[in-house]
């Protein structure tokens, strides 16, 4: 049973009784129940090894890349089970951005943006391609910086620009949910600020779920926060409420820096 006592009105994702184990004994995620609010930023926090990345990856089934993974429970996207969807369909609706910027090294900036179409063999005409590239790069505020060098390799950009390019690559599919796995941990403070600003802007159109190590980042930009500890979701609520008045003593210890 998923509790909804934190005022979520329009959940895009419902996670029910989700448990994930890398082998029979070692559970990375234990019986997690949660709703994720549409057009909001939800931050997943917790110490290393608490299962936050595994939970995030489960939402677009990226965790299935690991061999012998055991998944129990259910995740619904707009009421439809993600396990009944084809992975390509799911991953078009639920995009993912990683810790380190990972543009495709052999592709140009232009081709990196439409990589999802190109690599899946989806044919677009030139006008469609140009439109998607321009719109996606405008959305991540990269257009002005790269519009004259669209056919250079994506790897020539700075780290922050590369990360925004990776976000643009996700936006090109016009997803509903964007998952970000510590997207700023490899970036300098200025690039981090730009990405954060961008995420706050993007939540108008997309639902954002963000794993972060950085509590102040969660406090700055998220609307809802989840605190995970040893695979369990200990607390989930409005970020403001959780940071000012944590209900679980473990959350309080974590937020006040007693461990982490």
């Amino acid at each position, binding site marked *: 049973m998923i509790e909804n006592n934190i005022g979520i009105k329009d959940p895009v994702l419902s996670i029910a009784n989700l448990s994930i184990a890398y082998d029979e004994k070692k559970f990375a995620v234990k019986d997690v129940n949660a709703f994720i609010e549409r057009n909001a930023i939800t931050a997943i926090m917790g110490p290393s090894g608490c299962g936050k990345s595994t939970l995030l990856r489960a939402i677009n089934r990226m965790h299935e890349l690991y061999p012998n993974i055991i998944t129990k429970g259910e995740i619904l996207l707009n009421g439809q089970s993600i396990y009944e969807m084809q992975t390509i369909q*799911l991953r*078009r609706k639920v995009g993912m951005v*990683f810790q380190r910027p990972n543009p*495709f090294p*052999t592709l140009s900036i232009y081709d990196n943006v439409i990589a999802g179409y190109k*690599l*899946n063999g989806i044919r677009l005409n030139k006008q469609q391609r140009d439109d998607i590239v321009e719109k996606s790069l405008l959305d991540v505020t990269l257009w002005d910086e790269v519009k004259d060098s669209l056919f250079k390799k994506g790897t020539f950009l700075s780290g922050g620009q590369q990360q925004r390019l990776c976000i643009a*690559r996700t936006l090109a599919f016009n997803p509903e949910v964007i998952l970000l796995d510590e997207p700023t941990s490899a970036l300098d403070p200025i690039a981090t600020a730009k990405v954060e600003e961008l995420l706050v802007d993007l939540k108008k159109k997309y639902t954002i779920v963000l794993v972060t190590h950085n509590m102040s980042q969660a406090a700055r930009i998220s609307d809802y926060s989840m605190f995970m500890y040893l695979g369990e979701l200990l607390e989930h609520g409005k970020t403001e409420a959780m940071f000012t008045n944590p209900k679980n003593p473990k959350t309080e210890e974590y937020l006040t820096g007693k461990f982490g």
Partner: protein
Amino acid sequence: MNVGSGITYLDIAQRRKVRNNIFRVIVIVLSVITISPIILIISKLIIEGIGQINLDFFTQLAPDTFQAMSAKMSGEKIPGGIVNGITGTLFLVLLASLMAIPVGIMAGIYLYENGNKRYAGFIRNLTDILQGVPSIVLGIIGYIWIVKNVTNGFSALAGSVALAIMMLPLIVRSTEETMKMVPESIKEAGAALGVPYHRIILKVMIPSSFSGLMTGILLAVSRIIGETAPLLLTTLGSPVINFEIDKPTSAVPLLIWNFYNDPNMIDLIWSSSLFLMGFVLILNLISKRIIAHREKN
């Protein structure tokens, strides 16, 4: 200062200096010994072979013994060239590459993906053993499999099968090693876009490791290009240019062997060897350049 039993620090320092110098001299002498064969070989080939290298060398068929003899007797250069050998070598390398590259790359990808499975370890060990099989044995295999049973006669196909088997282990291992250098995050990026696994391999992994794959292929080609023993038993040699896979074909090393067996053609041994050496050297330089270029990026 005294360090006991009458030895001073000065003595120790002095001895170290002497030992250092002895060691340095030994290192220099050994390294000169190491590089001297290659310098001697190259200089000998250039001195003896350069005289025969001209346009005819690359455009004319190999002369017969009578033509060579009469040229020798009248004190002229041996006429003709080795064009049948050059085209034959290129043809054989092409055929062998067509067989070895796809199979080798596929096997390399398999090893990369399943590196720690028992079956992969078995394949890897067999590949290493294959690399150690003497080339004459592969020639015999080519003779029994292809010459006897498929083409019913000496043929380019038989030779290229033997050469392909020689190339295979080099390509398999270099593919595996280069794939390992592609960061895992690039594969994840593909998976996160919903790209099916085989497309990630084809469209992401292979382009990303292209330079490494090229280096492996070039080194494999330079390894087989001078092979003589397997070709003696399979392609036999031919006095004319041949591009048919079921016919005997010449090759530069086969020509060198023929020239060696004909006292009138000594001069052509040197020039053909120089050509072969130069070709291998260029392949090696290209692959070194590719590696250097990759490390710079």
